């Protein structure tokens, strides 16, 4: 289909690669970060890292919400899940994420907890009606997903449903990009900006990046999308002129999805929150506004934020910052595999560790 196949055209990909090789200045290194895990997956799957010139490094960033969910939030989910009066509703990605004592939603379910996997947060409403139990949707995700959690909260409130709750664990991307840029040890020259996050946010959130003389290109997930973006970034650096570019115009409008943005603002406010491996980042979390306290799972179940404690031995923190390649983690393929993940970066199919395990081992 047009939106996919044409963007895998081999001949054009080879031309783009040739152009990149020709234009990349061999006396320097270009370090570009894929913010989004789906980009990491695509880069790994199509073998782009090995096709690019050696002095262009593509490093993977914090782009998967499952990976960046801190341990206390995971443990809070388990705590809620083990209550008898509760049904947990979640996307499939979360089901195998390990807790600090080795538990997971999958194991809790085997022990009798009521845990349902859905494609749409709105399915929570049907489940709540069927069971009559307190039904808690696990709201994890970035700006792409957060509006869908907001839509559930708003609908539940409008319907006056008393037994639907949402755990507000969504996070926002610009704030974490700021933190990564400010870390001089990371030496990031530019970002492949997450295509689906940008569908919602639009381009303005990346202006802070180009203002700091780094490149930012919003792009899709096919080889031509990624290669053309890399070429664009190389050109921007060579010229020393930086501008946010939209290379995903088939889906992303420059202003983003204004309806979704309005929904986010109506339901959530931006609060400081914890990221696995990255610590507490100001204003990077979404918590319910006062008007939505009645659907807030944190209020309902009296969940306290306990702060960051990461899994021992797991190098997710360094992996998420692009400081360490997954394969350099001592546990990679050595106690930590997709079949038996130790850390969350190996669980999610978009996690860097799992992408490397599958395609670049």
């Amino acid at each position, binding site marked *: 289909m047009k939106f996919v196949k044409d963007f895998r055209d081999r001949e054009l990909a080879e031309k783009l690669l040739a152009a990149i090789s020709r234009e990349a200045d061999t006396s320097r290194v270009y370090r570009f970060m894929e913010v989004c895990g789906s980009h990491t997956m695509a880069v790994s799957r199509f073998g782009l890292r090995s096709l690019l010139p050696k002095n262009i490094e593509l490093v993977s960033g914090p782009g998967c919400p499952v990976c960046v969910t801190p341990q206390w939030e995971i443990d809070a989910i388990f705590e809620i899940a083990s209550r008898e009066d509760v049904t947990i509703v979640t996307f499939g990605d979360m089901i195998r994420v390990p807790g600090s004592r080795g538990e997971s939603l999958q194991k809790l379910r085997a022990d009798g907890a009521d845990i349902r996997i859905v494609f749409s947060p709105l399915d929570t409403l049907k489940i709540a009606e069927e069971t009559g139990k307190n039904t808690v949707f696990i709201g994890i995700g970035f700006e792409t997903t957060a509006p869908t959690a907001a839509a559930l909260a708003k609908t539940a409130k409008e319907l006056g449903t008393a037994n639907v709750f949402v755990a507000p664990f969504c996070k926002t991307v610009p704030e974490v990009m700021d933190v990564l840029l400010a870390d001089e040890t990371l030496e990031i020259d530019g970002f492949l900006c997450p*295509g689906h996050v940008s569908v919602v946010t639009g381009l303005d959130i990346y202006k802070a990046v180009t203002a700091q003389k780094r490149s930012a290109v919003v792009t899709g997930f096919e080889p031509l999308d990624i290669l053309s973006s890399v070429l664009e970034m190389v050109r921007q650096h060579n010229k020393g002129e930086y501008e946010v570019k939209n290379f995903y115009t088939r889906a992303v*409008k420059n202003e983003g999805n204004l309806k979704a943005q309005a929904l986010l603002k109506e339901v959530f406010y931006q609060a400081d929150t914890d990221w696995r491996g990255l610590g507490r980042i100001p204003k990077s979390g979404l918590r319910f506004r006062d008007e939505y306290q009645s659907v807030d799972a944190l209020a309902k179940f009296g969940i306290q934020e306990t702060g960051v404690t990461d899994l021992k031995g797991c190098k997710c923190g360094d992996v998420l910052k692009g400081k360490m390649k997954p394969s350099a983690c001592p546990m990679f393929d050595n106690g930590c595999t997709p079949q038996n993940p130790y850390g969350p970066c190996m669980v999610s199919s978009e996690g860097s560790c799992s992408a490397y395990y599958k395609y670049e081992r």
Partner: protein
Amino acid sequence: MCLGFPGKLIEMDDFKAVVDIDGTRREVSLMMLPDEVVLGDYVMVHAGFAIAKMDPDEAQKTLEALREFADLLDEEGQL
């Protein structure tokens, strides 16, 4: 996790629609879609919501631009 899939609209009423994603039928909510759509249009589907209209003309334009982007250099390279 925030993957988007292009789905073709095959049924529609006010806020609900059915899309075809690679042969699979999925019910989606249209409450978050900012654009006007008609049956046969493509939308990007994420977590049960249509979040954007997908524009085939834009896809075509991007491809043409990519060709130019790559070719331009071919010519320059021969200078």
